[in-house]
Every structure is written in C-alpha cells, then in structure tokens.
C-alpha cells in the first residue's frame, strides 16, 4: 500500500516536471526569436536613460510610452549622441536612487528634475543645465488671494517628503503656515482639489506638468512668481566622457527651437511660461 502511494506520487511529480520543462522550452524559443529580430532592426548598442515615471509633464510612463519635457530633451540628446529612439532603454530613477544608479553604472544618463548641487558633484557629474526651474505655488483656479509665499500665513500647504521646499516657506516667508507632507505630488493635488490644503509647492515646471494633466485641467493654476532657482542638469557618472557632447546637444536644441517647442507642448493649456531671466540656460563648462 505504502509503496503504491509513493510510486503514484513519483509519477505525478515526473508528469509535472515534464509539463513545466516543455512550457519553459516553448517560452525560450519564442523569446529568443523576438529578441533576435529586435537586435537586427535596431543595430548597435543601447543607451540607458534614467527618468521619473510619475511626474506628468516631465517624466511620465503611460503604458509603454514615455512622455514629458525630460524625456523630450533626453531623446534629442540621445539622437545627437548617435542613438535612435528604439536604442533608448528607459529606467525609473526615483530621487533617492539617482546617485547610486549613476555611480554603479546602471544608467548612462539621468534626466529626472535633477538639480545641480555641490554635494551631488562629489559623487556624480553633471552636464547642462538644460532648464532652470524655480519654487512656485499651485493653487485652485478660482483662488486670488495667494499671490506669493508671503500670502500663506495661516494657510495649509502641501509638499512631498524629502524636500525642504515647504519648510523654506515656513522659515523665510510665512511662519504661520501649516505643512502637510505627502509621499508624492499626486496626493498633494488630491488634497488641494478637496480643499483641505490651499496650495502645493515645488518647482514651477513640475507644478505646470500637474496642472496640464487632463484630470486637473481648469481646476488648478500655477501662481507664476518663482522665488528660488533650481538648475536641472543631466546626471552622468564621474568617469563619463559624454559631458561635452551633451552640452553641445543641449545648446543645439535651444538654438533650433525644439527646446521651446518641448516646453510649450508639455505644459499646454496652463498658460505657464518658464522664468525668462534664467531660461533658456547656457550649459556650464564641463569639469
């Protein structure tokens, strides 16, 4: 009796294994052929570019297409470096992982609202800047009493965790402001739409991208009085030799008008214009 049960189990196991193996075999052959075809049409190596996946208007993943100003600049630069669109491999680069992704060579370039700072220059290198953003406020469309950070006295303000933009307003402009910190900007806009907070603060172009989203269009607006400068650079590893070429590409993009076009297309319908005293920027000299 006992032996029979055991034999039965073994037979079942063997059958399962055979099934699993044949399934694997099928997968392998089909996967192999697709990949082969892809390489043949692409030709040459790939470039890995880190972007945000969750910032509408800058770096946003919708299904398998990537949209936003950061991705437009990235495509332009990649093309000038000799990589066509289908040779670009997009990778998500969340704020906290950007330095690690670059210093471990998991990505070649990062276009992800990456401000150039001296502390970051100790571990990574920057090309650009390709855009100069400034801290601004996003308010409800019908709001007229918030014109700048000074007007936030006694109001509720939302920002994301891990940035000091909200704290800066509390320290320098309006000590009586109540701060809410949320994991992402989308949560902040939800709170703004429900009326529980009066304003959302971060870089103006991020706010414009949020305002341009179909769900928020006509409900929120960017105040348009930036009160800081954030210089967005292209993050590269310190050993990278691409800095000069990226800067040339950025300058060309600004000169031939595609830079302006990309800004307009990604903030359409919000009436947003970048701070004209700083934009378009001239790339810094490479280190």
């Amino acid at each position, binding site marked *: 009796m006992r032996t029979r049960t055991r034999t039965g189990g073994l037979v079942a196991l063997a059958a399962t294994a055979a099934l699993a193996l044949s399934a694997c075999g099928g997968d392998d052959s089909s996967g192999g052929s697709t990949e082969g075809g892809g390489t043949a049409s692409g030709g040459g190596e790939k470039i890995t570019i880190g972007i945000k996946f969750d910032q509408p208007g800058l770096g946003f993943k919708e299904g398998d297409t990537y949209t936003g100003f950061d991705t437009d600049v990235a495509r332009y630069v990649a093309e000038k470096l000799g990589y066509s669109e289908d040779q670009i491999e997009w990778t998500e680069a969340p*704020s906290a992982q950007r*330095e690690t992704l670059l210093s471990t060579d998991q990505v070649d370039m990062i276009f992800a609202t990456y401000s150039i700072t001296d502390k*970051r220059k100790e571990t990574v290198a920057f090309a650009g800047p390709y855009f100069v953003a400034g801290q601004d406020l996003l308010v409800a469309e019908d709001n007229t009493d918030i014109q700048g950070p000074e007007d936030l006295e006694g109001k509720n303000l939302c920002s994301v965790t891990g940035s000091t933009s909200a704290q800066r307003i509390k320290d320098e402009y309006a000590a009586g402001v109540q701060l*809410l*910190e949320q994991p992402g900007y989308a949560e902040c806009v939800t709170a703004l739409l429900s009326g529980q907070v009066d304003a959302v603060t971060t870089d103006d172009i991020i706010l414009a991208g949020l305002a341009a989203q179909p769900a928020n269009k006509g409900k929120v607006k960017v105040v348009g009085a930036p009160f800081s400068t954030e210089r967005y650079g292209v993050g590269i590893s310190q050993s990278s030799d691409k800095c000069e070429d990226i800067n040339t590409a950025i300058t060309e993009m600004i000169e031939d008008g595609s830079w302006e076009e990309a800004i307009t297309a990604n903030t359409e319908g919000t009436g947003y214009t970048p701070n004209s005293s700083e934009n378009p920027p001239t790339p810094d000299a490479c280190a």
Partner: protein
Amino acid sequence: MGDYLSQFLRLFESYDVLGAFWVNIQLTFWAAILALVIGTVLALMRISPIPSLQWAGATYVTLFRNTPLTIIMVFLTLGVWGQLKIQLADDFPSNFFRFAVLGLAVYHAAFVCEAIRSGVNTVPLGQAEAARAIGLSFLPAARIVILPQAFRGSVAPLGNVLIALIKNSTVAAAAGVATETSSLMKTMIEFDSDVIIAIFLTFAIGYVILVIPVGLATTTLSRRLAVKR
C-alpha cells in the same frame, strides 16, 4: 574609519536623528496600546459562543490583515481627512500623528488578535470546562481563567507583532507624519547624497538597536511566563 566617523558626525549635527527615532518610538507606543485593546476585543469576539460576533471578528481580521498598511494610511489621510474632512486635532502635526497611530493600530490589531488566539489554544479545554462548571458565564470565564493564561502563552507572537509594528511605524510618512525616520532619511539622501553609506548605516543600526532588545525581552519573558504544564 575616521572618515566615516566624521560623516556620521556631520549627519548628527545637521539633522535631528534622535528626534526622528523618538517620533517612531512614540508612534509605536500609542499604536501598540491601541492595537492591544482592539486586538483583545477581537480575540474575545472570535472565541465567543455568539456566531455573529465570531463572524464580525473573523471579517475584521481577514479584511485588515490583507490590506496593505500604506493603503490604510493613504485612505485615512486622503479619504477620511481629505474628502470626509474629519479632523482629529486642529494643528496639522498632531492631527496626522493621531491618524498614523490609528492606522497602525487598526492594522496591527488583526495580528494581535491572531497572536492572542494562538495563546488561547495553549489553554487546555478542561480549563474552560471547569470554569463553566463552577458557574462562570463566558465573559468572567474569559477574564478570570482563559485570558490570563492565554496572554502568558502568547508573549512570543505578541513580541513579533511589536517588532513588526516598530518597523512599520515608518509607513506613517504616508499619513503625513514628516518628522519620522523614513522621511528624514529621504531628506538626507536629497541633500547629502555624498555620504549615502553613512545615511544607510545610521538608520539600519538605529533599528537594530530598537528591535534586538524587544526580541531578547520577549523570548526571555515568554520562557518565564509560560504556564508550566
């Protein structure tokens, strides 16, 4: 080595690291008390002889044990506070702290309930039968006979829940508590990315220091308190 030491020093000078851990300890403390109360009531419901209460307790446990904590937190801030406009305090910091404690408590209450139920299973059936035989009804029997023994048998699983709660208290960031450790870690990486290893070690070691004593204490206590049969 001296290089690392100066990096830690820089982090501790420019950020309130101990203050951030203190916020997590406070979150854990209040949430643990609340979760213990809710969890005990739930366990009583589940072992009670009334089918509707058993059903309600089991439903609560299934529902909250299988809902990600982040979703509970986001629901509390964006749903209960954002849309229903229910406030637990007038000023933002205490309001969101209370929401975070509430979220942590209702989530971990499900696990506390199951830990206590496992403790109830260590009490021999004869104890319950003897309690009924001397005329105690369900509640007095539970209070005087069953639960005291059950708690002594569930110290180890309750300790596990407490350890999970300590670490889960970082999810309070999703409920708008911005002074706790995971938010501070994000801020540090944003502004001091050049010392990322020191940042990682600060929080890794911090949580090891918090969690290991709890583990040791519950293991010792569970040995000492277990009813010798």
